[in-house]
């Protein structure tokens, strides 16, 4: 295995609020190899986006506290100065955000927004930048790119805007691309196109990708490894196959049972898992999933460790492997495949 390009070790993120301290991320460790696609999956509020944003320091502020480390090519990102981080942002690690409708400055031309990032890292002439912008836009599949570079975001559809975001993220050929729910706000058909595009680009450029999503369905085809987060913690991680075919954590089972399907309304709630996600303000003791877990037992009042069960497949559950096998209802894999078939023809 190649040397990982990014290593997150015991990351903790707390926010001070009026109501108290919110433990948004609680002891997360991850690593990312060059060219690898790592998916972080979880419900809203699971800490997955916070983890991703912490890497670029986008959620720094007087009320936020970060502990642990995140090493990127010898730089510790969490404690890096703003100036150092700035050199990494966009150039080394780029990010695509969830809502393309709001993530672009409404009063700036598309082309200018992309050019801004290029100019932040490279000294190029105006003409060179313009050419680069057009080329990037063409690469992400925006027709009549030269002309549309002069448009404003509101003149674009959601899918087109997300393409712009991708073009923006790729503009300095970053080593790591963080895609935070890149498809959530889009129509299902567009989702597939965007995912397809990300996959192509990955193959073309060899960029490592962290794909943050709440939808296991979108990752099956693209990710190499998956980390499932719940209540600020990683509850299970492993390769795609391991997760899909041998999920260990009851929460993962629930996720697998609620994969987005065309015939269901889109949404963040996972209808198949009863109950609400835990409050991170005042999290329950022990396993965070305890309250919603159908298989809860007294041991769950202690925090289960993230235990590696071999081949990098780890999970946080007190149940034994046998108990898990017995209690798993869904035939793993089938749903994932079914989903893939539905999406594929588009």
């Amino acid at each position: 295995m190649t040397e990982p390009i990014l290593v997150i070790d015991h990351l903790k993120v707390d926010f001070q609020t009026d109501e108290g301290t919110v433990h948004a991320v609680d002891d997360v460790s991850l690593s990312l190899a060059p060219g690898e696609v790592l998916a972080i999956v979880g419900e809203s509020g699971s800490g997955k986006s916070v983890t991703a944003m912490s890497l670029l320091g986008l959620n720094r502020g007087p009320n936020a506290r970060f502990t642990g480390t995140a090493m990127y090519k010898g730089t510790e990102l969490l404690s890096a100065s703003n100036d150092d981080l700035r050199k990494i942002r966009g150039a080394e690690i780029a990010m695509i955000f969830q809502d393309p409708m709001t993530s672009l400055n409404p009063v700036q031309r598309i082309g200018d927004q992309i050019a801004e990032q290029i100019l932040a890292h490279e000294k190029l002439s105006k003409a060179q930048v313009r050419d680069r912008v057009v080329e990037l836009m063409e690469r992400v599949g925006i027709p009549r790119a030269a002309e549309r570079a002069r448009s404003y975001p509101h003149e674009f559809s959601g899918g087109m805007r997300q393409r712009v975001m991708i073009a923006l993220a790729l503009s300095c050929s970053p080593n790591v691309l963080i895609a935070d729910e890149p498809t959530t706000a889009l129509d299902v058909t567009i989702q597939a196109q965007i995912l397809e595009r990300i996959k192509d680009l990955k193959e073309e450029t060899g960029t490592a990708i962290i794909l943050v999503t709440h939808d296991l369905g979108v990752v099956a085809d693209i990710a190499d490894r998956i980390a499932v987060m719940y209540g600020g913690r990683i509850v299970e991680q492993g390769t795609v196959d391991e997760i899909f075919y041998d999920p260990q954590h009851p929460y993962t089972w629930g996720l697998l049972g609620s994969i987005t399907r065309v015939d269901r309304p889109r949404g963040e709630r996972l209808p198949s898992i009863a109950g609400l996600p835990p409050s991170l303000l005042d999290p329950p003791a022990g396993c965070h999933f305890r309250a919603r877990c159908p298989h809860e037992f007294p041991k769950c009042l202690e925090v289960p460790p993230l235990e590696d069960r071999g081949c990098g497949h780890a999970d946080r559950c007190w149940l034994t492997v046998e108990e898990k096998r017995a209690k798993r209802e869904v035939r793993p894999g089938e749903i994932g495949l079914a989903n893939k078939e539905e999406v594929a023809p588009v």
Partner: protein
Amino acid sequence: MGRFIVRRIIGMILVMFAVSILTFLIFQVIPNGDPAVRMAGKNSTPTQIAAIRDTWHFNDPIYEQYVYTMKQVFTGSLISYSDQTNVWQEIKKGLPRTFALGIGAAIIWMVLGVSLGLYSAVRSGGFSDRLLTVLALIGVSMPVFWVGALMSYYLGYKFGWFPNGGYTEIAQGGFGQWIYHLILPWTALAILFVGVYSRILRSNILDTINDDYVRTARAKGISERQVLIRHVLRNSLIPIITLWGLDFGLVIGGGAVLTESVFNLQGVGQYFAEAIGRLDVPPVLEVTILGAFFIVLLNTVVDIVYALLDPRIRLGS
């Protein structure tokens, strides 16, 4: 864009039509004494009063009087009841003063409002932010005539640092004197708006700074300063600029009555105030219509500027 402007202009005309009728009616419906008797003076005779009624068309039906008056308003031939001066000539004399007051104050409040608002937002939550917040709210809470009177008295009269009211034309006293005479009125008028603007800008910035596209900008690796100026400030300023246009319209369109009167600038506002003190309807009518004109005009300009600044606004829809 062309259609939009045409539509706005038609709207403007309608609104001003309504304003003129309303103002006209206020003085027709509400009993405020007979202007003919007033004009005839104390020792008038019925013949004389009848002659005045005739000359001034007071006996015509209301709508004819309205049409007659409006004709005079638009041909600039409206005559004051109390001293029979041409109202438009008097307004023309006051306009440069009102503009001088309005523009200077507007620049001051914009510059100070924006810098203080920005500073406050950047230092948000800190001591200086709170201090500025308190000062802004005190500014907002002070009646301009009170501040103006105290300023004029203490700074202008007692300590003699500034001229005690009055206006000097540039042609007469030079640019320096002009500014010197206007500093106090500008300040008094601007205080309120500085408070309002810095508060609004601060909250706009704090709203904008959490917007997704600012996060995007930050993720690009540009400096915090650039993020602040190119993205946060630019977007936060759009509503401020439009507000600035509206407020400028209000000040020019009559909002400066108190300031002008307190500092004796003899602008249009003071002319209005003196006219209403004499229940001299023609100046009151014409100044009100003119004021409404400025307000509506700047509203329209603001709409257009807003559309230019913010491409999301589609004109004509």
